[in-house]
């Protein structure tokens, strides 16, 4: 993004506002759904999908990941792999418990 010109930035500003409105709308949606008394598993799935969409919007546009260099993606892919290990290895350990 270091070569971005002032004209491009003006276009970006419109995108930022759109993302901002989308984030607020998704917040209202997820709060509303939480009052619908869904059973636990679908409630968790829906809430995490909405949170992931919001998170992707922030990372892609506010942190302008969509136009970022390859090296950052490489570092982030590695991070995702380790993050998933961090989340799932303890779960595997639980399913393997001796009763």
């Amino acid at each position, binding site marked *: 993004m270091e070569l971005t010109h002032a004209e491009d930035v*003006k276009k970006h500003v419109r995108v930022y506002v759109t993302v*901002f409105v989308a984030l*607020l709308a998704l917040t209202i949606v997820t709060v509303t759904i939480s009052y619908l008394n869904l059973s636990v598993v679908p409630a968790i799935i829906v809430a995490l999908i909405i949170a992931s969409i919001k998170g992707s919007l922030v*990372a892609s546009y*506010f942190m302008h990941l969509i136009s970022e260099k390859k090296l950052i993606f490489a570092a*982030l892919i590695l991070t995702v792999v380790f993050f998933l290990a961090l989340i799932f290895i303890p779960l595997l350990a639980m399913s393997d418990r001796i009763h």
Partner: protein
Amino acid sequence: MEIPYTIKARPDTGLFNAKLGIWLFLASEVMLFGALFSSYILLRIGSVEWPHHVLDVPLATVNTAVLITSSITMVMSWASLMMKDFKKYRLYMGATVLLGFGFLIIKYFEYTHHFHSGELPSHSTFFAIYFTMTGLHGLHVIGGMIVNSYFWGPGSKMWKTEPERFTNRIEVAGLYWHFVDLVWIFLFPVLYLL
């Protein structure tokens, strides 16, 4: 000694150094918060019952909106510098700091309410992980506010001498601030809604 590649991209990485630095730092932050989310899952699976909607959802929804708003003011402060508008930069950066402060004030009311009701971290597994996760997140908000206040105040002198370097600094501070917002986007449903 001059710090290398503060403006121009390093040929081998294609990035100015601070940008690669902040992304690697954020990657380590993912692991820090990831460990806590992992703990949360284990604690929740291992518990007999888990409270639903015991926290103040409307207040936290307002706080989510406050933090999201602070994210757009942050990106607008950087965009203002890209358009060489220093006055607007000061306005947006000032708003970002104030919104961060607003977030902490609301959090303070939430915390004191819990303390008065005897809902201390020792009250239950839920409150233990709630205070750990929101407490660590709150510390990150305070850290970001300190950096942003510096760049709003004394640190902004650099705009006159090295405008491009200063713009890059705001971009990097922004990446951190958006990350703090991103963590909250996941904390909010996990702790308040589910």
